[in-house]
């Protein structure tokens, strides 16, 4: 446990030194199953971004969150 805390502390110190790497945008869809995707806030990016709904009229729901991952 001590090593883990030390590792986290060192990592915290290094974060401002190394620029963010990886994708501009990443979403692993760790949201509540059954909810609409629109309205979900992606905290995997900084600053956090929220999925917006695009549609109108009847039968115009957007994709939903399903249980389980493909990864």
């Amino acid at each position, binding site marked *: *446990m001590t*090593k*883990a*805390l030390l*590792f*986290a502390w060192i*990592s*915290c110190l290094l*974060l401002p030194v190394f620029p*963010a*790497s*990886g*994708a*501009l*945008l*990443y*979403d*692993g*869809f*760790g*949201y*509540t*199953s059954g909810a*609409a*995707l*629109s309205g979900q806030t*992606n*905290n*995997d*990016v*900084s600053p*956090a*971004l*929220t*999925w*917006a*709904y*695009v*549609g*109108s*009229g009847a*039968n*115009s*729901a*957007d*994709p*939903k*969150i*399903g*249980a*389980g*991952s*493909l*990864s």
Partner: protein
Amino acid sequence: MGNSVLTDRTQSGVARIALPSPQTSGTIYYSMILKVTDITNLNNTTTGSFLAGLNNSIGAGASIASAGAALMIHRDANNASAYNLGMAVSTANADRVFDTVAHDTSQTLCVVGAYQFNPGADDDNAYLWINPASSTFRTNNVPAPDVSSLGLTSTAAVSDIPTNQLTSVFLRNNGVEPNQIQIDELRVDTTWAGVTGGVPEPGSGMIVLLAAAALGMRRRRAACES
């Protein structure tokens, strides 16, 4: 553990999320893990439908007026229980180009799409890779695409994205799609490496994740990672 996204062909709505900054040049890639879990009602064998892509607007709206690097799907013409994926630099039917490899509901695919800005009019391109070689992951060795939708060679009036910018990525329900498609691990980046296993941007949970890694917990697999 994360969940995933499910499409529904009985609905027609779209969800889109803004990119951290507008993209106006170069090549913009996106990747996802995709599985068609119920192919029922996928009947179109020609122009198909687009289920995802890049967009030039952000926030709520009434409709997706345009799309760049639209990820296409239609039923395989020779196998009613299989589908083909495709790519379109715009949503115009003339820009829709499909792969000929048949896929079925048993397969989970790594899909990479890309939109390439070019300086002239009607000359932007879009590309699709399906299960690209894992040896290219996390590198900038971009393999040859499986599908190319080229603005200059299409007969569409205008293939370039209107306003010449990409500001969001979207996932779409549509009645031409199969009953259900499952999507996970969405990434957008300006590099191939960034969408094939790159590390997500550090967020507020980064420190917790690092501590968990130090404790020996199993690292979650990245998108399109072998």
